């Protein structure tokens, strides 16, 4: 029998480790992201958040540890294998396909066994969803940064994934656009999706996440609902440093 996967845990990460040379970016991190909720992953710069995302999505190979998803260990899988199991992500700095149109950016994500007609219908629907309808035939590289963020977000939803990892969705996005994006994220959560957000904007994290995980030096130092995290001594210390006596 495989590991126990509680029904309310979507991604169960155990003792994950990854070192780059002498830098232990993720150093025995254990996290359990709740199913169907919006979770926040925060921590000071260099605390290992993005590396954790990279390990979760196969972009980097973990040195050790497990990532259980639906009873299966994802550690060491290739990115496309992780994706096909229903886990998708966006990037800290957008990585849209610049010399391809908005529509092409969307279409390349669909599985080839999905008919062209269905794929296009889905792409049109999502492009409308993020209000890029007018720019459907434009090269992605010509979109504003905020629009690229929206495109990347929509693109990640093409295959109706179960788990969506968002790496700094608010960075570089204007306030109006951000409210739209957050509304979309809540819409997904209401449809039962699991969402994990890495973000430096504390308003986003505190107001929109059900549960917050705090990392520092590659390990989890705290976890809990926003109200608790705001008061947590270890979190304050990680962000602002220890008071010296």
């Amino acid at each position, binding site marked *: 029998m495989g590991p126990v996967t509680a029904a309310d845990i979507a991604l169960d990460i155990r003792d994950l480790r990854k070192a780059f040379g002498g830098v232990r970016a993720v150093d025995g991190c254990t996290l359990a992201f709740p199913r169907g909720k919006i979770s926040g992953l925060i921590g000071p710069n260099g605390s290992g958040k993005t590396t954790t995302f990279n390990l979760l999505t196969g972009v980097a190979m973990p040195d050790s540890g497990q990532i259980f998803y639906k009873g299966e260990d994802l550690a060491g899988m290739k990115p496309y294998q992780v994706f096909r199991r229903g886990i998708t*992500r966006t990037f800290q700095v957008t990585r849209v396909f610049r010399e391809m149109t908005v529509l*092409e950016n969307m279409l390349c994500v669909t599985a080839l066994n999905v008919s062209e007609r269905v794929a296009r219908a889905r792409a049109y629907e999502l492009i409308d969803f993020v209000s890029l309808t007018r720019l459907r*035939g434009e090269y992605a590289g010509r979109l504003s940064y905020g629009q690229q963020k929206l495109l990347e977000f929509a693109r990640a939803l093409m295959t109706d994934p179960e788990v969506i990892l968002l790496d700094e969705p608010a960075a570089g996005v204007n306030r109006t656009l951000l409210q739209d994006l957050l509304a979309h994220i809540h819409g997904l959560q209401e449809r039962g999706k699991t969402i994990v957000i890495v973000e430096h904007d504390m308003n986003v994290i505190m107001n929109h996440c059900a549960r917050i995980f705090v990392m520092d030096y590659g390990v989890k130092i705290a976890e809990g609902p926003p109200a608790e995290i705001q008061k947590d001594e270890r979190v304050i210390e990680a962000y602002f440093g220890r008071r010296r006596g």
Partner: protein
Amino acid sequence: MATHEHVRNVLLLAALAVVLAVLPPALSVYLKSFVMFTMMYVVLALSWNIISGFTGYTSFGHVAFYGIGAYTCAVLVADHGWHWISTLVVAAALAVVVAVAIGYPVLRLKGPYFAIAMLGTAEGTRVVVTVWDSLTHGGLGISFPSVENSLETYYAMLVVMLMTILVAYIVGHSRFGIRLNAIREDEGAAEVLGINATAYKLAAFALSAMFPAVAGGIQAYKVLYIDPPSVFFVQITIAMALMSMLGGKGTVIGPVVGAVLLYSAQELTWVNFPTAHLIAYGLFIIVIARFMPRGLIGFAIDRGWVRKGMVH
């Protein structure tokens, strides 16, 4: 792209096929051979474009597949008495096998490293063919039994060109093609979005190797004598790249336009100025890189004359 546009494009291709099919009786021997070689360069440029334009892996060694095709045809016809047409199937199959075997390790390299590795592959193949005396007659080359073949090679090249255009068109207007584009734009992001880049690159590479091998076979039979320097000539690779770039790599029509223009220009100049086309090649590279980095088609797209993207 709407269905009626596909129908229109297929009809245009059919019209081109009919024109080229009825043309030969009206052509002199020289012109017949000129049209045949133009068609050959269309095949080469379009094939190169599949791996280097669509997928973004610039190959500086594509002549390897052309040479392999030429030698397959020559060895089987001259030494084993095969009918030349049947050797073309073997040439295509062999090119695919070699492309997969070489591509598996080499397609892990990116950018200039891939380009150099392919240059090495082509040179390495030339050396192997040169020293493998017992099979290839080494540096002596291979002569075919002399026959009048200008008409049959013309039609063979026409068929291969039409097949290449059709395949490039299908790839260019499919989600398979868009996925190749995604690998070109950002391979890491493509993989995160579910694209098995290794498999796609290998498929693109095999496809881009197949038609040059067939073209090489036809060309060998046409000229009736080959040796390693002539069929593993680095300038053939440069021509493929340059024609694609001039027309607009990463598009379907670009390499066709580039091949016709550049080969015609070369043919017009070389009679009077034997080395002028080499100077012209150099000038073309500079002018394209400076003023039209995305080729004539890209230039037209930027001005709104042609629609963006491949699947609209």
